């Protein structure tokens, strides 16, 4: 569904992604790990269309379309979803109205009628239960005054509502307590199907015990320097990144 070839991107004249390759097929779960500042969130931002990033080379195809040509909203409408590492607070915009607008604009793009109020409410109740999201939070302003963990759970609630084809979870586990981690992971597992895919960005093996990945990639200095199975995550947990960094720098020496 997604094919990234030699992707290069910069922000404020600083090269961040330096030739990144990744292919994702329906039904797969990919974990991306890597040291702080290696470019994980940048990759997510470039895919979602944040305009601070300038793509300087390479290509990204999403279901046969040139993803990089699409506006951020059209990427979402095509089925891409980014659960943000740092979700913003938007006072004055109600969480539920925001979701209703999002859902109906996505439906309109697909040529579907807007959901009537009753069906929307029913769906919202179902999904709240699925990800154990507090009904009180649903009616508040978007993330305003939410705790760190509540914001992350709101991202997963939105994910459950919008049912994207490809979801990128950027450190959704950080800031979650142990119970919440399990709930969020169970929610994601319940949403997994043969038709959708997940990219899970994380620093911790723990999450991958719950959401078991098919592939694990290490992103370092704007490139994927190693890919493997879930065993790689265990190895990283044990050894850190230094042994990999050395192998990257080796040819230069």
């Amino acid at each position, binding site marked *: 569904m997604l094919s990234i070839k030699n992707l290069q991107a910069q922000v404020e004249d600083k090269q961040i992604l330096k030739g990144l390759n990744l292919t994702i097929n329906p039904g797969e779960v990919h974990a991306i790990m890597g040291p702080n500042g290696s470019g994980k969130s940048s990759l997510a931002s470039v895919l*979602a*269309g*944040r*305009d*601070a990033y300038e793509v300087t080379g390479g290509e990204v195809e999403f279901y046969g379309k040139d993803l990089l040509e699409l*506006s*951020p*909203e059209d*990427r*979402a*409408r095509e089925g891409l*979803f*980014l659960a*943000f590492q740092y*979700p*913003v607070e*938007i*006072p*004055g*915009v109600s969480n539920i109205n*925001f*979701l209703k*607008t*999002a*859902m109906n*604009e*996505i439906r309109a*793009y697909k040529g579907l009628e807007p959901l009537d109020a009753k069906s929307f409410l029913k769906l919202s109740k179902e999904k709240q239960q699925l990800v154990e999201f507090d009904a009180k939070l649903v009616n508040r*302003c978007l993330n305003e005054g939410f705790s760190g963990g509540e914001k992350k759970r709101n991202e997963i609630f*939105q994910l459950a509502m*919008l049912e994207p084809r490809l979801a990128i979870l950027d450190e959704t586990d950080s800031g979650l307590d142990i119970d919440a981690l399990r709930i969020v992971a169970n929610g994601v597992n319940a949403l997994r199907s043969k038709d959708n895919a997940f990219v899970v960005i994380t620093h911790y093996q723990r999450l991958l015990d719950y959401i078991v990945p098919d592939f694990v990639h290490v992103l370092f200095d704007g490139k994927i320097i190693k890919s493997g199975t879930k065993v790689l995550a265990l190895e990283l947990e044990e050894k850190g990144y230094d042994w990999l960094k050395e192998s990257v720098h080796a040819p230069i020496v």
Partner: protein
Amino acid sequence: MTPQVTLPIYDDLLKDFSKLEMKAEHEQIRQKRRNALEVFKRTGFPTRKHEDWKYTAVTPYLQANFRTNGSVPIAPVAVDYLKLAAIPGLDCYRVVTVNGVLQPTEVALPSNVKIRSMAEAQEDAGLLKHFGSVSVLDKAPFAALNTALFAHGFFLEMDANTSLDKPIHLVQVLSSDAHAFVQPRNLVVIHAGANATLIESVVSTPGTKVFVNSVTEVVLKENAQLQHYVLQMAEKETQLIQQNDVSQSMHSLYSNYTFSLPGSSLIRNNLNVALDAQQTETHLYGLYLGTGNQLIDNHSLVDHKMPHCNSNEMYKGVLMDRATGVFNGKVFVQQDAQKTNAFQQNNNLLLSDEATINSKPQLEIFADDVKCSHGSTVGQLSKESMFYLQSRGISEQSARAMLVNAFAFDVTEKIGIPQLEKFINHKITAHIPALN
């Protein structure tokens, strides 16, 4: 030589005044007119050299040959003004004026509220007592000009200890193909313990070229309450200079909501509230949306003269295209006004590089035991918020509209009438520009 001399309207107005002198009128009113004319003649039309008009040039709008006083059309216009001003779903008592002239009411008002034209009520003791008692003309050339030369307008009185089951909707239609200079004068007296809601909508018929210089004096007696909404939504070739002067007695509550919407090329609101007694409460909410080349100028003064009064002012501005906003909010806390609570805030959102705002909150405190704060901000739509909304499939246009509505929320949520709140939110959404 003052530049006025080159304005034909200046001479026309002076000629009008000599004609007025020949008409029968109560001596008290006539005397106020004469005094006011002297005040006006001293300053003439203000120019940008006047501190209070630094950002707002009016003379460019006064160059035309205007119809004044007697020659202004006063007939009801052949346009469905209900449509122009209708607030969907809102049940209210409707009163209509055309170029300031009160029209016969279609449905009789309840007996506890009286609306008469100024001319009809000119012998009324209540009118004579309050007319010209609230407005201070010294540094207000337009108010002085209005006092000297007003024509038409209404006198609204609400009986003591009564209230109404629904708001009064005063639809002020402006209508003239040829340039007209219109100066209505209004007086609102809410007697002791009475409670009223007044919605004023200023609208215009297509192609109207009217310059309005209006003054409304509002008197709130003890324990009186007035929720006063002003909706300015006239068309592009209109200019509005609207002075609203309020006097509050003990335990009275005055709430003003001023919505200046896209349209009129020039809007200048002078809102002056005198807290003349103890234990009063005042809320001033404003929202201005400027588009095109509009200039929207809000000058306000809250004058705390007595102890134990609370005032709260919150103005929000959204400026697009090449629009200019001016906010000048004065809060005076006089020496006797101990235990004052005064709060003032002005926040602005600039949606275009060419839009400007001049914001000047002014707090002057002469008492020592008070709680006061004020602040002013200018910002743009947050890119982070825009991206967040768009990343969920929401179009750029809707995302902007959502954020602008959210910005205005602190003001719109204070609207005590749900239909009106909805109406204003729709207006906001409708005016958010398409993609740059």
